[in-house]
């Protein structure tokens, strides 16, 4: 099916992006309006800013996920949650040996390494990403459960909490960290040749090969980046909870994938923007927070996100596939 679909990428791309961003902004607006009606606490300034704290980890994982999905080839990383847990746990063990800030610096390469294992399995070994990362998802969370014996480890120094809990001019540090990774990533994707390679590989592996780009190498690097970002997520999580929990990343893979897809990344790769992912992160966080404020059950929150995920994925397909009419023709 992949091969059959010829996507008209370049000309309409800009328009789709623009409309996507507009839709997302409108969507956020609708969310804000609805929840402001439903709950008097939603739009209180202190609370509203505070809400952005919850965008940090989801957004960072979603960024890695977006890049991987962008590069196509069925790329997906289901192990982000487990990598987050494992690097959080490793950070704890490191911090018992060295200064906590040094441990933070050392954790990132560990995350890169975990990502590299995924990368090797998915690209050079050639296992379909959903299976390879499903397996490492199990393996990584197994390791973190095993080395902690299942116990949550606490005992970080209090000043370490600044990353997860701190506020700068009322803006949560977590959100600043998120911007701190999003902006360079956005520049990388837009302006560098590597960024163009990602899009090229995602659009047509074959063409990319012909012009001398190695899809395997590009994708490998992205898995490594995703691992590093997951480690960053683990650092934030540890700092936020002041505890390393072996199950800290449970369920985060859904949210990461959801923000990537909701942000307009095409599931078969090749098109998507980081701004979209960022807006989607904010939207999803608002939905969750808003549903929480009107006391909607957490099962429903995840159920709604799940529905949204499938719905938007279908919608993307309709848009990306050339509109509803083409889809109907394809059915016939």
């Amino acid at each position, binding site marked *: 099916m992949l091969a059959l679909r010829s996507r008209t990428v370049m000309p309409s791309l800009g328009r789709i992006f623009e409309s996507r961003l507009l839709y997302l902004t409108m969507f956020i*607006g609708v969310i804000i309006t609805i*929840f402001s009606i439903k709950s008097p606490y939603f739009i209180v300034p202190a609370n509203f800013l505070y809400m952005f704290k919850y965008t940090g980890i989801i957004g960072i994982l979603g960024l890695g996920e977006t890049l991987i999905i962008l590069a196509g080839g069925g790329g997906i990383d289901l192990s982000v949650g487990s990598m987050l847990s494992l690097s959080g746990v490793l950070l704890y063990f490191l911090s018992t040996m060295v200064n906590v800030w040094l441990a933070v610096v050392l954790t990132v390469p560990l995350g890169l390494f975990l990502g590299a294992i995924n990368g090797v399995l998915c690209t050079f070994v050639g296992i379909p990403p959903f299976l390879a990362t499903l397996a490492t998802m199990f393996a990584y969370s197994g390791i973190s459960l095993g080395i902690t014996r299942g116990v949550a480890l606490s005992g970080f120094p209090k000043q370490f909490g600044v990353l997860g809990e701190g506020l700068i001019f009322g803006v949560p540090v977590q959100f600043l960290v998120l911007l701190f990774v999003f902006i360079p990533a956005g520049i990388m994707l837009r302006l560098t040749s590597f960024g163009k390679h990602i899009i090229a590989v995602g659009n047509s592996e074959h063409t990319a090969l012909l012009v001398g780009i190695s899809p395997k190498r590009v994708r490998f690097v992205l898995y490594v980046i995703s691992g590093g970002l997951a480690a960053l997520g683990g650092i934030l999580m540890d700092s*936020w*909870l*002041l505890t390393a929990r072996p*199950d800290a990343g449970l369920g985060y893979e859904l949210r990461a994938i959801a923000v990537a897809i909701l942000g307009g990344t095409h599931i078969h790769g090749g098109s998507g923007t980081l701004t979209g992912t960022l807006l989607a992160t904010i939207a999803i966080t608002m939905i969750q927070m808003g549903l929480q*404020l009107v006391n909607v059950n957490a099962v429903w929150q995840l159920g709604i996100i799940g529905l949204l995920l499938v719905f938007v994925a279908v919608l993307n397909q309709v848009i990306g596939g050339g509109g509803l009419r083409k889809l109907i023709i394809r059915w016939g």
Partner: protein
Amino acid sequence: MKRVLWSIVLAVLVGWAIWGVAAERTISVAFIPQLIGIPYFNAMEAGGKAAAERFGVNFIYQGPIDVSAPEQLRIFDALIAQGVDAIAIAVLDETSICPAMERAAAAGLIPFTSDSDAPNCPARRLFVCQALNEDLARAIIDGIAIRLSPGDPYKAVGKIAFVSGYPTAVNLNTWMDLMEEYVNAKFPGLKIVARRYAGGTAAEAYRQAMDLFTAYPDLAAIVGVPSTSIPGVGQAVEDAGLTGKIIYTGYGSPLTARDYIHSGAMTFSVLWDPWALGYLTVWVGWLLAQGVALDQIPVEIELRVPGLEDRPEVAVRWIPEKKIVLLGPPLIITKENVDKYDF
């Protein structure tokens, strides 16, 4: 980009305009369980609702669907934002919830714990305690020992196996540790041979229990620690033909255990009355929110809670040393009394 910005501004303005005035004030008490969707916390919710109705409290019950500390924290923060008067929480992770409790206290809310504690957190006003962990651990081991050796329980001989739930559950691990300590200290003949984690499903508990019966054919007792293990292990006891031949016990709610207690597969179950615990939690929250400084009473006293007088095994006490409101001694559920409970 301009359009984007304007649509945000517009939406925000609409939101502000629609934001109405807060309704007239009633005291609201929130309770965050460790997870929702299990009969145990459901019973607490029902008890809480009953108390809320009686005392005219607005009761909010919200919890994560997985045993997840970050989720609990997120819900806690949302409740602070809602400005409830008192928040009770069944703590999953003390370190992470403690700063949030301090935030709550700073915002003028009353944070306290119920069902599972954060004893080292200064912001936690008190702990509504179902039964002391030590008592719970002893009730299981004593029950096993007395059935193995009715004359002198301390001479009981036999092997015991645990089938627990998630390896990350702190309360389950605490109980297992305390049971093990108690056995090692007092019962030289008893031996704990296995500690299995079945995750959260009955099917896995079933499988693990079946394999345990094979691995230890002379097993004297098996303990299903969380309520998720109870039906699985019970079914395994029946299917392995060990009904009446093995002592099967655990911390199971009567509703889950009833069928197995009746069939004889389960010998006895130890728990407390979660309905009463939920009721007590809301009552305590209501008192504190009205400015009754329950936690300042320096002496141990018995508390009479209106609406709980006729519940069995409920003897509410205030223990100032640990800042605990204790519900009462553990409830031992056997064939005789299992039908009396509905939780």
